[in-house]
């Protein structure tokens, strides 16, 4: 049990380390792909204020629209928007459950990403079939909304197919993204958002209409690309002037450092627990093996007397030890499937197994058969 617990914790550490490394590399790619720093906003507005803005009617919409325009049309800095605040609702699709965002409680809700044109430049999305969004796709042309589908949708849709959501919107499939396309939002933790099962639509502010939640969601998920912190100050001042949101801006680099620090602490905590459990587990296993050898000395002696060899006893101990480790590995495989995490955990478990058997095997190999026989009598 202790070995199983230690291996599970170890697998979680590998999982965290591999995930965070992958996230760090991808985020660094994005950061280095830009000439200036990318900033994300944390909304510090009080909930009462948010309620007031959302229920503020036409006046609120006007103010939010002004703030939105200020941010998006500002010549002093660039931006991109990636809004995941809404889902795609499809009741009559035949997509399998792995596509649903939360299959247990919302089987008809699918991952939806609304993007602006500059998002495509930052994340360099490419299509394997069809085309990426053009400038016209971001304007409300009054007809079907163009939609990009993740790689895995190719089994279900073709180019130019029309998809109707539960709200009556029609989407026309214009392309399928390359496999393992992704985007990152370090404001939402260290998750890599894989787009293979995502619907991606162009952000069309003309369609926001009277719905204040569209503005709130879009402004919050608009990222500022600038090296001049005064631009961030200017956005906040504009927001204050319009009696809207309170933001705290953090650069991707700062946010990445925070995420790495948080993960480091997490790894340290789990690592400490794992080390303690592993030490007890290894000591326990070695003691059990030594006890097993001691209590079975007579049996071993009889087997040796009848033609057995120390080698066959050693094999028995090896099988016994590695059976425990195999069971633990199987549970790790069930949890993590076949992945680099599993591979690293299995390799580590073999090392642990070797550490465990070294002393009992040396003890056995140094024992002469006549000594065992004499001791057993």
């Amino acid at each position: 049990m202790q070995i199983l617990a230690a291996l599970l914790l170890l697998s979680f550490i590998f999982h965290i380390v591999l995930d965070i490394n992958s996230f760090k590399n991808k985020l660094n790619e994005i950061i280095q792909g830009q000439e200036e720093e990318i900033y994300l906003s944390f909304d510090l507005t009080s909930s009462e204020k948010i309620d007031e803005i959302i229920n503020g009617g036409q006046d609120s919409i006007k103010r939010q629209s002004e703030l939105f325009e200020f941010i998006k049309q500002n010549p002093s800095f660039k931006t991109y928007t990636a809004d995941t605040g809404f889902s795609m609702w499809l009741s009559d699709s035949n997509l399998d459950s792995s596509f649903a965002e939360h299959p247990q409680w919302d089987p008809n809700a699918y991952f939806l990403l609304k993007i602006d044109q500059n998002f495509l430049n930052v994340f360099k999305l490419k299509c394997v079939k069809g085309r990426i969004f053009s400038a016209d796709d971001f304007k409300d042309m009054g007809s079907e909304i163009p939609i990009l589908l993740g790689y895995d949708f190719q089994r279900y849709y073709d180019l130019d197919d029309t998809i109707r959501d539960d709200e009556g919107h029609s989407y026309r499939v214009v392309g399928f993204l390359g496999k393992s396309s992704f985007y990152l939002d370090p404001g939402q933790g260290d998750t890599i958002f894989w787009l293979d099962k995502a619907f991606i639509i162009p952000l069309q502010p003309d369609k926001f209409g009277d719905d204040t939640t569209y503005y709130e969601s879009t402004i919050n998920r608009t990222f500022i690309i600038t090296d001049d912190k005064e631009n961030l100050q200017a956005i906040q001042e504009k927001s204050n002037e319009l009696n809207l949101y309170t933001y705290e801006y953090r650069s991707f680099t700062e946010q990445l450092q925070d995420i790495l620090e948080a993960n480091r602490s997490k790894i340290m905590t789990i690592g400490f627990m794992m080390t303690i459990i592993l030490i007890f587990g290894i000591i326990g296993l070695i003691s059990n093996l030594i006890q097993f050898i001691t209590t079975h000395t007579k049996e071993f002696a009889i087997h040796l007397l009848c033609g057995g060899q120390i080698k066959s006893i050693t094999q028995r101990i090896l099988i016994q030890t590695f059976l425990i480790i195999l069971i633990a590995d199987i549970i790790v495989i069930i949890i993590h499937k076949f992945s680099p995490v599993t591979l690293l955990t299995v390799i580590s478990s073999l090392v642990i197994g070797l550490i465990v058997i070294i002393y009992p095997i040396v003890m056995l190999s140094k024992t002469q058969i006549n000594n065992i026989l004499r001791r057993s009598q």
Partner: protein
Amino acid sequence: MSIINITNLHKTYSSGESEVKALRGLSLSVNKGDMIAIMGPSGSGKSTLLNIIGCIDRSTNGDYFLYDRLINTFNDREMAELRNEKFGFVVQDFALVERYNVYKNVMIPLTYSKKPIKSKKDKIEEILSKLKILEKKKAMAMNLSMGQRQRVAIARAIVNDPDIILADEPTGALDSDTGEEVMNILKKLNEDGKTVIIVTHEPKVVSYCKQVVKIKDGKVSK
């Protein structure tokens, strides 16, 4: 025909700085079909000699030929094969695995055997029947009487059809009637062609043997 030839055999046990010379230049020859009693006082080297003959232990010096093959040069695997194929062991405390039943105890040598045996089950049952303990085949070793235990030990010793039976104080833990039964079994095995070497200090046991070898201070005294 001599099957065991031992010349100038020495065995020294080291324990820390002290040394115990168990055998000091012992020479012995055993012919096929012999039934030999090895006698001698405690510490004279009887059991050490038996262990070396049975390939359980190695000599420090001297030559040991078994069927004209020099055993001194054999590795652990070859020694184990000899223990399995050529020897059957019967010891004073029976050396049974208490948590095994009779059948499983007798099965042990066959587990390591390379001899072609048609049916291990039939072979075990045949031996158990011969030794009149077939009805006990499912009984746990720990639930048997002393006499039954020694019969099981003998069954295990002969199940792989070895040429030589090595018995170390085979009647030491038995009452006289049961001891007599066991000796009759060993005698019968000898009559059937097995070579039997018995370490004992009981004159009654000696009376069953064709030849007596007395050991004193690690050497054959007569």
